[in-house]
């Protein structure tokens, strides 16, 4: 939001009284989770003049976007790190604690021994990996195995572990990845990672191979990825889809990935596990049998528990994919809807955009976009809008999209954390 919009919103905050008689500035909103969804929402609520407390378990946030270049040795992990100083400076009250439960009747969030009252609660906890013995997990892939065969699907120590394992692998080695069925965090993310690992292998260990075992036959930006792979990594990257035996059914203690068609031993193994909404969603009762949280597409209020809004990866509301871009867009729509509800007004019917950039190599970007509106209670693709980058674009356009990806990252991190992330991807290393 511009300072002007903030000023205006602030000035408007006082005269609007909610139906319940609570002024905007007096109502308490608690946001759980300070990632792309939660931090953006907390800042947007504050700018709309709402009293906001943000509950975040970690002292710093590590960004998943641009973490694939870290895996491939093209960026430093430090560039993924964001503190909360600017969020606090924006007037958001920060509680460094893990939320453990919600009493939706009393409207209280439990945080490590204390209770925070709320008028409206926003949950943006992201995803939790389903690890064995949880239902729906990859058999054999428990927390201990994830320490040895990192998923790195949350940015952190596993991101660096995977990178070190790639660096330690001798030339001529094999890397194996597995990709789960939909839905999961960042639909094109596994294929961006496969591309950049292939780039690393081609550059540093040209006799090595990467095999990608996929539980699906179709994936995001598939034609663009596959055309780029055929051109850039024909001898390095092999993708095996569901119908060719790509679905991984288990992992052995030595990391061998098992499929119905055979075993795939490898030197470096990167299983991306099935996922569900972060644990607090289960504790609050806002997730359903699928493990995700159904929400209203106008307000992002839970369909299961009134007064609780869910945004970002944890939520399902139709066709929007689980991305940082989507989490930020939903965060701002949700903040505006909450400000309207607190003021006793009807929230506006929103229009949302998603755009996901992927790098298939340094300086080679592709994108997929969608525009969504509520239809029959679901955010639905507007026909004719969105779609992917053209298949036949010249290298100059790919380079432009790689640069726009970095511009987007600076803007998204500014909207969430109040400071632009350093976006560079180093193609020379």
């Amino acid at each position, binding site marked *: 939001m511009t300072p002007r*919009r903030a000023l*205006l919103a602030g000035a408007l905050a006082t005269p609007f009284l909610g139906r319940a008689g609570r002024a905007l500035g007096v109502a308490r909103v608690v946001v759980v989770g300070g990632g792309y969804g939660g931090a953006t929402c907390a800042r947007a609520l504050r700018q*709309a003049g709402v009293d906001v407390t943000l509950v975040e378990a970690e002292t710093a946030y590590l960004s998943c976007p641009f973490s694939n270049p870290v895996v491939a040795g093209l960026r430093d992990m430090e560039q993924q790190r964001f503190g909360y100083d600017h969020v606090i400076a924006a007037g958001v009250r920060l509680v460094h604690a893990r939320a453990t439960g919600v009493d939706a009747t009393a409207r209280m969030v439990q945080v490590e021994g204390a209770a925070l009252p709320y008028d409206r609660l926003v949950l943006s906890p992201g995803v939790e990996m389903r690890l064995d013995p949880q239902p729906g997990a990859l058999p054999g892939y428990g927390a201990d195995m994830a320490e040895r065969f990192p998923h790195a699907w949350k940015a952190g120590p596993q991101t660096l572990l995977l990178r070190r394992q790639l660096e330690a692998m001798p030339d001529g080695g094999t890397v194996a990845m597995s990709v789960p069925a939909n839905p999961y965090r960042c639909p094109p993310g596994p294929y961006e990672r496969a591309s950049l690992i292939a780039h690393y292998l081609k550059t540093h260990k040209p006799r090595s191979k990467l095999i990608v075992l996929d539980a699906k036959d179709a994936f995001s930006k598939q034609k663009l990825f596959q055309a780029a792979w055929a051109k850039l990594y024909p001898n390095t990257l092999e993708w095996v889809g569901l119908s060719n035996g790509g679905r991984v059914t288990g992992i052995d203690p030595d990391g061998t990935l098992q499929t119905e068609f055979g075993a795939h031993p490898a030197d470096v193994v990167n299983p991306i596990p099935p996922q569900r909404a972060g644990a607090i969603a289960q504790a609050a009762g806002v997730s359903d049998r699928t493990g995700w949280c159904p929400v209203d597409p106008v307000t992002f209020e839970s369909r299961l528990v009134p007064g609780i809004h869910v945004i970002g990866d944890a939520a399902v509301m139709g066709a929007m994919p689980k991305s940082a871009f989507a989490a930020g867009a939903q965060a701002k729509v949700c903040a505006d809807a909450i400000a309207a509800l607190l003021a006793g007004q009807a929230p506006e019917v929103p*229009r949302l955009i998603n755009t996901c950039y992927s790098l298939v190599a340094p300086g080679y970007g592709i994108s997929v976009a969608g525009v969504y509106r509520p239809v029959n209670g679901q955010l639905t693709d507007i026909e004719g809008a969105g779609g992917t980058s053209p298949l036949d674009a010249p290298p100059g356009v790919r380079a*432009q999209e790689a640069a726009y990806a970095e511009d*987007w990252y600076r803007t998204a991190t500014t909207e969430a954390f109040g400071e632009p992330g350093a976006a560079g991807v180093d193609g020379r290393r």
Partner: protein
Amino acid sequence: MRILGLTLAALLLGAAGPPGAASCTGCHAAGAGIGVLQGRPADDIAAQMEAFRSGARPATLMNRIVRGFSPDEVRALAAWFAAS
């Protein structure tokens, strides 16, 4: 007078902007490298959008995004960004 007019326009459009505005700022926020829309003349913003729609202005992305908005919706967005 002009200030008053702008404030009024912004008021009528709502502080949050017309539908879609909060997504545009995911790339076009103040200071954004992709390009700042705030404070640009409304006619200019709308003309660029329609040029993306027709293909008269080549684009990597905006041609795909503009098709999610009618010309009227584009004009509302343009007016709001101009007044922001």
